[in-house]
């Protein structure tokens, strides 16, 4: 559907890319990243609003790198919606059809369909779109984008200004539109929950680079770079060295802490890597409870240093006894109620081998990136 090859662009001192991406028809990709990562610039470059510094864009097999935006047939819903304030809701929705001089009967039928789908009955004849509520504006803008029957829909943080209930309704609606209308969606967001709920595939962009493209589990459990791991709130990240490659391919890692981790191609003794585990994957075991063989590896005695209380979960900050390293452990409230830990309590934690991710480090500099900002 859309393929992007080594696409790079510049705005001021910011550089995007080079980015490679290949999006199949009917698929739903969420482009996730912090604000300022270049996500919007990427969309603009794909749409031809910005001239790329290098690289190509193909749509439906055609090279459109030098095609004007109006001939790329991409529908676009920007973050601020950009409804046309001088037009009524109906004229906003029909704007594209009028400009492209589409067949009137087809347009009327499609409009009726969208009015039903997005429940626009009471909104369609409103003259001043600035008086619509947030959710209403959103639906008008979505209808405007969908009316020309696009095969490709770009969404830029479409729900960032909406409250949770309406957001969820529209998210479910979007998934429906993707599946039923067969439109390929590229959806930019900084909201991880939204990215995971909607994206069949998730692409993570940080500092203008596409750092990882993959399934939900890939992104969540197997981050490809330290930036991705940090952005996805991996609290437990360790700077380790390969101490031994075991016959079955798994690794012994060390640097204060000693961990057995899954192997990867090219692992060699002495290599430096980052390893980590999501805080909800860390297992807590009471001091005297017997444990099965699958938890024997990476088992540590620890004490509770601090307890952070959230809405539905608690986070225990535990200090491992041998290494002094701190590990965050997330427990749901029900588990916390049962276990009843307090600061200073002793416990055992297991960083299960199969829950550990590793990232080989080419240069040790990645650790320094955010150094200025660390307390």
């Amino acid at each position, binding site marked *: 559907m859309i393929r992007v090859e080594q696409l790079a662009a510049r705005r001021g001192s910011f550089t995007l890319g080079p980015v490679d991406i290949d999006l199949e028809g009917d698929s739903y990709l969420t482009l996730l990243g912090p604000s300022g990562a270049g996500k919007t610039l990427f969309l*603009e470059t794909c*749409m031809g*609003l910005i001239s790329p510094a290098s690289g190509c864009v193909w749509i439906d097999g055609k090279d459109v790198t030098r095609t*004007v*935006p*109006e001939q*790329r047939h*991409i*529908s*676009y819903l*920007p973050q*601020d919606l*950009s409804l*046309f*304030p*001088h037009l009524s809701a109906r004229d906003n929705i029909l*704007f*594209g059809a009028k*400009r*492209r001089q589409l067949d009137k009967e087809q347009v009327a039928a499609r409009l009726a369909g969208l009015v039903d789908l997005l429940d626009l009955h009471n909104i369609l004849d409103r003259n*001043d779109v*600035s008086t619509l509520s947030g959710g209403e504006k959103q639906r008008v803008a979505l209808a*405007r984008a969908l009316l*020309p029957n696009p095969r490709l829909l770009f969404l830029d943080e479409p729900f960032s200004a909406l409250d949770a209930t309406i957001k969820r309704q529209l998210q479910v609606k979007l998934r429906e539109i993707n599946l039923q209308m067969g439109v390929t969606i590229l959806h930019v967001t900084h909201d991880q929950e939204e990215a995971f709920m909607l994206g069949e595939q998730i692409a993570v962009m940080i500092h203008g680079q596409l750092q990882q493209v993959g399934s939900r589990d890939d992104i969540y459990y197997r981050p490809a770079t330290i930036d991705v791991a940090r952005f996805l709130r991996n609290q437990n990240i360790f700077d380790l060295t390969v101490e031994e490659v075991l016959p079955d391919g798994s690794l012994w890692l060390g640097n204060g802490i000693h961990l057995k981790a899954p192997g990867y191609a090219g692992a060699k003794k002495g290599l430096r890597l980052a390893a980590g585990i999501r805080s909800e994957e860390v297992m807590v075991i009471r001091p005297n409870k017997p444990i099965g063989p699958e938890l024997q590896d990476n088992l540590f005695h620890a004490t509770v240093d601090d307890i952070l209380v959230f809405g539905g979960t608690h986070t225990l900050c535990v200090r491992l006894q041998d290494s002094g390293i701190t590990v965050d452990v997330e427990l749901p409230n029900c588990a916390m109620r049962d276990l009843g830990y307090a600061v200073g309590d002793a416990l055992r934690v297991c960083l299960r081998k199969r829950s550990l991710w590793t990232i080989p480090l080419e240069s040790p500099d990645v650790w320094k990136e955010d150094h200025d900002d660390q307390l």
Partner: protein
Amino acid sequence: MLQRDTVFKISMLLPLAALAGYFLLLVGSQAAFFSLTGFFEQLSQADIHSAITLSLVAATVSSAVAVAVAIPSAYALARLDFPGKRLVDTFIDLPMVLTPIALGTLILMSWNTAFGSLLASFGLTVPFTMAGVILAQFTVVVAISVRMLKATFEQINPRQEQVARLLGCSAFGSFCHITLPLARRGIVAAVILTWARAVGEFGATVMVAGTAKGQTATLPSSIYLAMSMADLPRAVTLVVILIGISLLVLFGVRMVMEQKR
């Protein structure tokens, strides 16, 4: 409400009140010389008629041309990137800081260049003609027009134009269907203010076109003539007309800018 803040607020408001009072005094000071019968008597005279007509026609033509040139120029300055943009953007303000007298002199001098010959070959004579009045006014007001419209275009979110592009508009189509309608109020305000400046233009006009009664004497020139002949009733009449126009313009612009949608 908070006493110490009140002192501060008053010390900020007093200069403003003094200033507004001074302007009010100025506007009111013609009352001593004004009489309604004298006003209408003056209005019936032929050379006042012709001054009014000339002022309105010349100002309308010159401000229309100025805005027509200013719309694309301002859009280019607001939206496009091109080499030398900063230089052009700065230089284009020249008529706003150079005295109209000097501008008028420069127009007269340019009459002796190829530009003058070009105009002359079209049958246009500038010195001491109505065409000269229009050219002088245009030269003085076009920069104001560009400046105002540039600010207007800069306030329009380019995202709106981009969305229109993706919905099927060419660059020109999105300019016509989105940019111009959204700039509507700013353009109307620019037209009104440009026109008002053209009506009030004196320095350049007097240099280029002189003050020939009934021919090239605009309203401001006529005041100058009247005052130099100590003809107070006539001067007062003309001043009152210009104050009236100014107040209409000021409140008209405010109404346009505060309009809904």
